[in-house]
């Protein structure tokens, strides 16, 4: 029982990442009708926002401290981050320690900006082109973004630790008399994902803006005829979708040190997630994200691996194939989406 609960939890954090990326992909697809292969790159850019902020906060100046010496006997150069100099060592140190959560604030404007530029600069011109062209151009864009990041940050994974306070483990099962030890940050990640997903859904469901967007998803032309500038709203939705992917990336950095090709690795999986959930269905994307995350973690249990060797490597793809063949529209896909 403990083991099963633990696997479910393990699946939730990966599932959260899948769900967030798939949610963004579906938002873009549902609003603009564009298949965005560069979405994984947005996830990666988000992760590197965290890296950048961490580096910015760690910018320091050197002071030669005559009272201390290093092991060669020379006066020691003490590095003090500017942040610590400005806010005092304690508060400044805390800011540096909390770089990753702070990067959320840092990443939101950047990601919305990146999304806006991407939509206006490139994707706008591809609405009328076939889906294959959209796939290809965004695939090219993903390569470019990835290589640019590689140029500036190098090819090696960069450690970005979580704040010390959230770095340990917590026994989640204590309340119900079980022993389930689990890293705190992953719990944080899961709740963060739930908040974001809830936020997006309530934004679409309970605001006028969201209502118009939903109307536009259902029938773009009619909404346009009613005198609403639907293109502008869709552009904003693209920015929001980019921000969702970016935030997923920011928060994922302590779980997995970011490197330049992390986006591609997640992209393939999130596309599978979107297709399993049903192209264009937001709840489907979220559901499929969590479902596949949990299935993946169950498949990596030793008992199951010894039963069917290699199943952990292929489970997601296998499920996708089965779903696509038995329920061609995915779990919650609507009729008439991408069926031409």
């Amino acid at each position, binding site marked *: 029982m403990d083991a099963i609960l633990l696997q479910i939890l393990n699946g939730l954090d990966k599932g959260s990442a899948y769900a967030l990326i798939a949610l963004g992909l579906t938002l873009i697809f549902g609003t603009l009708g564009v298949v965005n292969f560069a979405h994984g790159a947005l996830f990666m850019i988000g992760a590197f926002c965290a890296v950048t902020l961490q580096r910015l906060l760690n910018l320091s100046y050197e002071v030669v401290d005559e009272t201390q010496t290093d092991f060669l006997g020379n006066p020691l150069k003490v590095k003090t981050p500017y942040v610590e100099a400005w806010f005092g060592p304690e508060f400044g140190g805390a800011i540096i320690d909390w770089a990753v959560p702070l990067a959320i604030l840092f990443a939101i404007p950047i990601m919305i900006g990146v999304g806006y530029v991407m939509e206006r600069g490139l994707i706008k011109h591809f609405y009328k082109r076939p889906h*294959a062209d959209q796939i290809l151009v965004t695939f090219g864009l993903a390569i470019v973004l990835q290589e640019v990041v590689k140029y500036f940050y190098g090819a090696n994974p960069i450690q970005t630790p979580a704040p010390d306070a959230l770095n340990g483990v917590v026994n989640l099962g204590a309340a119900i008399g079980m022993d389930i030890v689990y890293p705190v940050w992953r719990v944080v990640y899961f709740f963060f994902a739930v908040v974001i997903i809830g936020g997006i859904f309530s934004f679409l469901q309970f605001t006028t803006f969201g209502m118009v967007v939903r109307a536009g998803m259902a029938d773009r032309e009619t909404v346009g005829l009613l005198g609403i500038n639907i293109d502008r709203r869709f552009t904003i939705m693209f920015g929001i979708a980019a921000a969702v992917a970016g935030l997923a990336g920011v928060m994922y950095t302590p779980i997995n040190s970011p490197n330049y090709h992390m986006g591609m690795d997640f992209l393939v999986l999130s596309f599978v997630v979107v297709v399993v959930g049903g192209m264009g269905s937001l709840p489907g994307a979220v559901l499929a994200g969590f479902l596949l995350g949990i299935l993946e973690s169950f498949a990596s249990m030793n008992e199951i691996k010894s039963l069917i060797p290699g199943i952990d490597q292929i489970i997601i793809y296998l499920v996708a194939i089965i779903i696509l063949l038995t329920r061609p529209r995915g779990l919650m896909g609507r009729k008439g989406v991408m069926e031409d």
Partner: protein
Amino acid sequence: MFGLNKKDTSLLIIVACLTMFAPFILNPFPTDSGLAQFNAGYPDLMQRFVIFGIFAIGFNILFGLTGYLSFGHAAFLGVGSYSAVWMFKLIGMNVIPAIVLSVIVAGLFALLIGFISLRRSGIYFSILTLAFAQMSFNLAYSVLTPITNGETGLQLTLEDPRILGVSATADGSIPVTNLFGLEMRSTFEMAVGPWAFQFNAGYYLCAFIMLAAFYLSIRIFRSPFGMMLRAVKSNQQRMNYTGLNTRPYTLAAFVISGMYAGLAGGLMASMDPLAGAERMQWTASGEVVLMTILGGAGTLIGPVLGAGFIKYFENIFSKINDNVLHSWFSFMPDGMEDAVVFLIHPFIGKGWHLTLGILFMLVVIFLPGGLVEGGQRIKGWLSGRKAKDDGKAAGETNPAE
């Protein structure tokens, strides 16, 4: 000639001449001149040109004709490589059985994957092929290690049985791949003045096979079967309404292009007998998509051009470094020279993929027909409006769907 019309015959002859005289054409600069680094006439690179040419020709039969965008074609190439290396391990070092087996195995594999994937079209098809390819890649890395040798990759060893050959040569080394005794690596060098031309047995084998593959693809393009595939691309629904089941046709196209990929994989293993799982990764599938689009999907010559273009510039760009750039721009004032070198630096050497990505985006945005369309446009500008209209009428550059 060979059942082709005049235009296709001349195209085939041009390609044949280019491949046969490639050691000369690709080696225009004397060996010791400063421009020798732009030479591409050495065996390893020329082999890659034609092998990836075959791969792209095959991919084009599927994507260019039917419009089905497969993102998992590298799986067939990988399977072909593995089967060829196993043939070298078990049977002997002759390349013919290896190539034949790799084509057959890749064909069967494509039949299986195609049968399932082709139930869906559009992006669903792309995702399904991607899923299958990633599955094969992951399996090759993990569970199938006894067959694929995992991360190390499948290699020849001295203990291999090789029932029709010898496990080890007289001097105790691993025998080399050959075609009835003609070693694939044997190279005849010809020095003409300051030039040195290399004629490699392996290259010519690949080149002949590519010509055959190219000829076959022309025949497919011009056949009723090819017409049917084009009809599937332009309007599959209408085909279904006329009571025609399109799936056997698309499946046949898928299997044929899978066999081409297997052939390319088999040749790759014949030139250099090892096979690794990274050949099956989806980035490798992406590469053949790039080649085909860059050259011009749906055209005959496009994929070959694209493959050559990408492999040539990959090689050249990777070789250029800052020192080379400095020597080029040394005529400029010092500050400007550094600035220019600094600006170009991200795009060369390891930054080649960046250049490729940008180039690819530009092609997709402005030239959906690829290099072939670019060539036709330039031809149109040079010879006036009339020729341009003719080019359009020929209708060879339908943008990819």
